[in-house]
């Protein structure tokens, strides 16, 4: 219950931040966020683990719409939004795992909490680094675009490989 509440808090925090900044895009972002919230409630109530990625994804799309509509300077809070989305998904998944009524030792719970904390910290650092690097005058051009596209393709390939293994 606590984990589900924390997951909801993470989702609510990001949604509130997105809505606060939305302005003209508020109806679209609000609708997407609402659907995401409903999905989150549904998956937490019905313990549907396969739905876990959808609320962060929908909220991410809402945030992306807000970014596109706003067209202002770089949002410095983006790393926090990213970590919020990750925590929403991970805490929801943990909450569903706890429904199995497996009596876990304290060390097991602590290990997962520490691992999640480490992942969140690392994610915050990486996301902040990305935002910081974007501010650096590293230049632009075809080479950077190719590097970016190659990394995106690499990640897609990884996704396909993992899907086949799973």
């Amino acid at each position: 219950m606590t984990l589900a509440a924390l997951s909801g808090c993470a989702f609510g925090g990001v949604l509130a931040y997105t809505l606060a900044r939305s302005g003209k895009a508020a109806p679209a972002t609000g609708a997407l966020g609402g659907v995401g919230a409903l999905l989150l409630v549904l998956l937490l109530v019905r313990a549907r683990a396969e739905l876990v990625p959808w609320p962060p994804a929908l909220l991410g799309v809402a945030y992306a719409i807000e970014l596109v509509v706003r067209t202002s300077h770089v949002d410095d809070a983006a790393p926090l939004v990213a970590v919020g989305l990750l925590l929403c998904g991970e805490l929801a998944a943990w909450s569903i795992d706890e429904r199995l009524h497996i009596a876990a030792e304290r060390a097991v719970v602590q290990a997962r909490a520490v691992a999640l904390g480490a992942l969140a910290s690392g994610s915050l650092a990486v996301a902040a680094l990305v935002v910081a690097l974007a501010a650096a005058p590293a230049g632009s051009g075809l080479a950077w675009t190719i590097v970016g596209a190659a990394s995106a393709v690499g990640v897609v390939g990884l996704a396909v490989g993992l899907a086949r293994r799973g």
Partner: protein
Amino acid sequence: MTQHVSPRLPAYVALAAAGLLAGLVLGRVELVALAAPFALAAVVAPALARPPQLRVALELDRDRALESEIVEATISLTAESAERVDVYLDLPPELSTASRNPRALALAAGEERTLEVPLRCERWGALVLGPPLLRARDRLGFYAWEARLGDRAALRVYPSVETLHALLVPLETQVFVGNQVSRTKGDGIEFADIRAWAPGDRTRRINWRATARRGELWVNEQSPERNTDVVLFLDTFTDAHSGGRGTLDLSVRAATSLAHRYLQRKDRVGLVSFGGFLSWLEPESGTRQLYRIVDSLLQMDIVLSFAARDVAVLPPRSLPPKALVVALTPLLDPRTGPALLDLRARGFDLAVVEVSPVPFVDAGGGELEQLSYRLWRLSREAMRARYLQAGVPVVEWIDGVPLNVPLEEVSTFRRYARPARA
């Protein structure tokens, strides 16, 4: 071990890819930052995931127990390293545990852990436990490996034995020495009768009081102590059960108690399971026979069959002459009645303990259901009347009533009724 990947992982990779592509297309670094945590999780999780090397052993502190006793199961776990191992001991319905099952624990490299699972034997049966189901997971639950490891452990739970104050006395005894006073006359301890002296009678058998009164020699006669043959005849065609108890359960308990008590008296006890699956044990005496019977009873189950059966299919040695046949039956299957009456017609000393299915049958709420229920009860009454007409004592044994009660009823019936010889 079978590896499972959480659906989160490919979804996270897809989210990361979508974020990166969107960031590239829209030229927004925030979207790349948004993708970064998911990309990090997707990279870190496979990199850190290691299939665990687990060794498991399952042991029980004993392989035989009585109902309601506690048996200690020990699961020993050794792992090269496992961040989280879920251990689940799949228990048959005859066993329960108050301890935590399943449970999750963390194992360091080379660490050996021992889990104690106290098992309460709720019901008799020949049970097989394990192997335990193990599921190792990485810390964030992206990868899981499942397997059943270790050996199985066999456990025989014997039905508890009811204390019986009196047993059914067979009408005829066998030729071997036992504890039952025979109705015949011969060398023994119990006084039977007196008769006129005949050449060859020993002088110490002369009844001097009767001799003085009658003016000629009279001698005492004794009844010898003999053993008896008892055949427990279980009807396993069908049973009625509800809430974990049923007529078969009661029959097995009664058969165990009777076998235990008759074998204590040095009688020979046999067993016939008359149902879809036919089995028998020829009458023998001794502790070994008790174990044979109980082991055989543990295997008892209802096997659905439409095959016609009668007692002719039983080998003659399973039903020796002059044996007391105690039938334990719910009188539900139409094949049982003719078989029992056939036994009676063949001259066997038969007593029927009807293990009542009534407590396990719901009478229903509707008018038609109530009517059907009453008709069913009446048909059972009629069936009992047929047995009584044939000189077969039949008594109803209801769940919760001590077995002594129906046995005493049979004894009372037999006190006043004698089987007619053809």
